[in-house]
């Protein structure tokens, strides 16, 4: 309970200052930070997705029976071809569900 409050307060405590900083300060951010920010979504989200998808029950599951892997590939392909995020998520979820049911 206390740890959950700490978690949420901690998340807010690192989020709000970032939002308000340039409006209360000098109003610009360093060039290097701006460059680094371009890679944050790619790096962080890939770092979360790859182990989540590839490790199933603490084992590397690099095979076609891995429903998360197949679903993630389907989502990736749909978004790549259509540029439509929600279709990609929906399509991936459907394939993931079917795969889980099959195997």
């Amino acid at each position: 309970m206390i740890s959950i409050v700490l978690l949420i307060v901690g998340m807010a405590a690192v989020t709000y200052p970032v939002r308000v900083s340039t409006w209360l300060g000098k109003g610009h951010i360093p060039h290097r930070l701006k460059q680094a920010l371009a890679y944050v979504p790619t790096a962080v989200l890939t770092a979360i997705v790859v182990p989540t998808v590839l490790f199933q029950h603490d084992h590397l599951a690099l095979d076609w029976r891995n429903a998360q892997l197949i679903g993630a590939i389907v989502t990736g392909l749909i978004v790549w071809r259509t540029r439509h995020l929600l279709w990609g998520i929906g399509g991936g979820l459907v394939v993931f569900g079917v795969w889980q049911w099959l195997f």
Partner: protein
Amino acid sequence: MDNTVSSVPAAATGPAAGFWQGARDTLPMLVGAAPFGVIFGTLASTAGLPVWATMMMSLVVFGGSSQFVAVTLLASGASIPVIVATTFIVNLRHALYSATLMPHVQVISKPLRAFMAWFLTDETFAIVYHKVDSGEPVRVGSYYMGSASAMYSNWQFWTAVGIAIGQSVPGIAGWGLEFAMVATFVGIVVPLLKSRSQVAAALSAGAVALLANGLPYKLGLMAAAFAGIAVGMAVASAEGKPS
């Protein structure tokens, strides 16, 4: 917000009109955010977050992607410092937004600006920036708060709907719905991979995440994120162009 002066002196509308205009222009974003609010609310309980904490997170953090990341990490047993640090990195992009809007909000008093900043999101930034960039006269403060209020109440509402679904559908935790988070992240990353440096960032982050998966408290995530950012920047500077 009556003392809010527009950045464009000839703003013809009053504060209330500006507020409604901002809310109205945000409507498509509300529809887009709704499913994510529902997914977050539904999955938070399966990740072990109590109802009050799920609602509290939407109320005080109010950052969709960081909330998604937090719930995913919580379910995988990450420690609080790692989740908070990841939240910081994920939400750092907001500095870019407020810096970009700075010339337009400078006329607004600092306390009011400090209040407004609480509600800064990707969507409100996009809507407000589009408006001020168009050169149309607008009361920036009211317009911003109109957009932000719409986003904020929308996010709370759909979070609550998600919680209700998570609570009322028996056995929903076993459906493998956490895959919705994975699919969302994949769908966000794929369109970003349009330059060599972005692909390099993804490959190195993925590789380090796999190699460092055994590290405790999900510290491997931090290592992988920093590796991806560093490699992306290195490749971009080797190519002699930004991003």
